[in-house]
C-alpha cells in the first residue's frame, strides 16, 4: 500500500459516504475534493450542488470560490442561490459537508465569533450558507482535524444546528424532521451520533490511533462503540485519482 497523508485519508473516507445517484451540497476545499473523488470512483452520477447556484458541474479543477466559474463548468444548470437552497429545503439533497471553528458533542457548529458577539475576540465569517445547508439537507457531515480547541464542551456561538441540546431537541425546534449530523470525519477517527442521546460516538479509528488518542484531543466526553472498526486507508486507485485528477496542484492534499 502506498504512503498517504491524513488529509488524503479524510478525503477518501468522506468520498466513500457518497453513493452513486446521491446529491450533495459542498463548499470548496476538502469536501469538494471528496465529492470529486467520489464522482470519479464510485459515484459517477453524484449530483454536486454549490450554494451560489452551480448545479451538477463536472469540475475541471478545484474551485477557489463556491461561486467561481468552475462551480458551473459543464453543469446541468447555472442557477441561483434560491435554486440550490430551495432544492435542499424541498428534501432533494442527501448530504452536505460543513466545517467550523468549533463543534460540540451534538454536532452543532460555530463559525460566527470567538468571544462576545458584538465585541468579539475573533470575528469569523458567520453562517454563510452553512446554517441553511445544515437545516435543509438530510445528512450533514463534517471533515475537521481532531483538536481540543475545535471539539469543545460549549460553543461560543451556535451558528449552525446539529442536534442542538440532543435527544429530540432538533425536531422540537422546528427544523425539518429526519435531518441532522451524520458523520464526523477527522484525522484520527470517524464518529456518528448515538441514536437516543444524539451524542457524538466513535465508530471507527484511523490506523495508528487509539480511542484514548481521540478522547485526549476532544474537549468533551465521547461515546464509543464497544469495538470500533479500523478505518480503511485510501486505496492505490483512490490516491492516484486524488493526486493526478482531483488535486494535481495539491491545494488541499498538500496541507
Amino acid at each position, binding site marked *: 500500500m502506498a504512503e498517504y497523508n491524513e488529509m488524503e485519508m479524510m478525503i477518501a473516507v468522506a468520498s466513500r459516504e457518497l453513493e452513486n445517484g446521491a446529491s450533495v451540497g459542498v463548499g470548496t476545499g476538502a469536501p469538494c475534493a471528496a465529492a470529486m473523488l467520489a464522482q470519479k470512483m464510485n459515484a459517477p452520477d453524484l449530483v454536486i450542488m454549490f450554494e451560489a447556484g452551480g448545479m451538477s458541474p463536472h469540475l475541471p479543477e478545484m474551485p477557489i*470560490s463556491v461561486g*467561481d466559474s468552475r462551480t*458551473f463548468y459543464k453543469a446541468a444548470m447555472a442557477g441561483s442561490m*434560491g435554486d440550490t437552497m430551495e432544492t435542499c429545503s424541498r428534501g432533494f439533497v442527501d448530504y452536505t459537508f460543513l466545517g467550523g471553528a468549533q463543534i460540540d458533542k451534538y454536532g452543532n457548529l460555530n463559525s460566527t465569533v470567538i468571544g462576545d458577539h458584538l*465585541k*468579539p475576540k475573533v470575528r469569523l465569517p458567520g453562517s454563510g450558507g452553512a*446554517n441553511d445547508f445544515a437545516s435543509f439537507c438530510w445528512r450533514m457531515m463534517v471533515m475537521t482535524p481532531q483538536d481540543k480547541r475545535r471539539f469543545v464542551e460549549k460553543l461560543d456561538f451556535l451558528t449552525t444546528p446539529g442536534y442542538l441540546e440532543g435527544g429530540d431537541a432538533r425536531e422540537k425546534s422546528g427544523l425539518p424532521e429526519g435531518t441532522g449530523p451524520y458523520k464526523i470525519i477527522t484525522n484520527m477517527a470517524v464518529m456518528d451520533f448515538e441514536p437516543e442521546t444524539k451524542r457524538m460516538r466513535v465508530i471507527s479509528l484511523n490506523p495508528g490511533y487509539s480511542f484514548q488518542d481521540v478522547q485526549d484531543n476532544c474537549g468533551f466526553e465521547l461515546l464509543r462503540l464497544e469495538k470500533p472498526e479500523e478505518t480503511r486507508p485510501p486505496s492505490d486507485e483512490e490516491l492516484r485519482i486524488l493526486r493526478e485528477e482531483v488535486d494535481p496542484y495539491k*491545494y488541499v492534499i498538500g496541507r
Partner: protein
Amino acid sequence: MEIIDQGEGTLFTDPDPDKARFFFRNKDRKMVNKVMELKTAIAKFVHDGDYLGIGGFGANRTPVAACHEIVRQGRKNMGFAGHTSTHDMQILSAGEVYDRLDAAYVVGLEARGLSACSRRYLESGKVDITEWTNYGLTVRMKAAAQGVPYLPARNLMGTDTFRKSAARMAKCPFTGKKLVLLPALYPDVAVIHVHEADVYGNSRFKGIAVSDLDLASASKRLIITAERLISNEEIKRDPGSTDIPYYLVDAVCEVPYGAYPGTMPYEYFSDEDHLREWLSVDKDLDKFKEFLQRNIFDCKDHEDYIGLNGGLRKMRELRTKELLLQKED
C-alpha cells in the same frame, strides 16, 4: 398569527410593502439613456446613510469598481447587506463606509483566509451587527421582490444565528409546524455588475445568478456596471436573455473589467496574486494605508487601478485562465 419567538437583533430596514409600493409608483418608467460615468452614478444615487446591496458572490461578478468609487467618495454611515460578501466587504470595511451590517457571510475571502481589515472593523464595536444566513438574506430580498412583508422559511431555527437575527418565529396556520419569518429587505440602492447592458439599462449576465434577480427587484435604486454596452436592437432580438429590465435601472456605467480582481464568468478569472496582496497588506495598518492611497484614492477610476496592477497584459492572462485555454492542445 401567533409569534412564538423573536430574534434580538436590530431590523435596519422597513419591511412595509406599501411604503415600497408608493416609492416604486413614482419611479420613472421612461426609456431614456442612462449612461453615465461611474463617479457620477455613485455621487447621484449612493448617499451617506443609505442601505447598500452589492451583487454577485464575494469575488465573482462583483462590482468592485463601484465599491472602490464608494470608498473614494468617502461614503459613511451606510447599512450593508453582508450577503456572500468577501472582497467587496474588505473594500467597504477599509473605507469604514457602513455602521449597520446584516451579516450572513462576512470578513472571510472563502478558502483564501480572513481579511484583517474587515475583522478589525467588526471587532472594534463600531458596527451594529444582525446575524442572518446567505439564503436568509436571499429570502428577505425575495419577499421584497414579491411585495410582501416577509416570507417563511425553515432555516435559522434553534440557533444563536436566530437569536441574534431580527427574524420571528410563528406556527404555520395550515400545518402547525414552526416557521421562521424573514422580513422583506428593500435596499435603498444596489450595484450589480453584468456582462452586457444597453443604454436604457436592459441587462444580461452569464453564469450563475446568485441572488441578483431578487436584489435588482428589491432595491429602490439600481446602478448597473457592465463589461460592455450593446445596442437596444440586440436586446430586442433576444428578449429572453434579458435578466434585468431597464425600468428597474437608474444608471448604466460601462466599466470593462469592473469585477477585477474578482472573477467574471467567461471573461476573466480572479487575480489570486493581487487578492493575496490585499490579504497580506491589510494586516499592517501603515502599509495598508499606503496601499489604499495608491490603489484607490490616487486612482482616478478603475482603468487607473488596472493599469497599476498589470494592465491589459494581466487581463489577457486572466482570460486565458478563465477559459482554461492553457489546458488546450
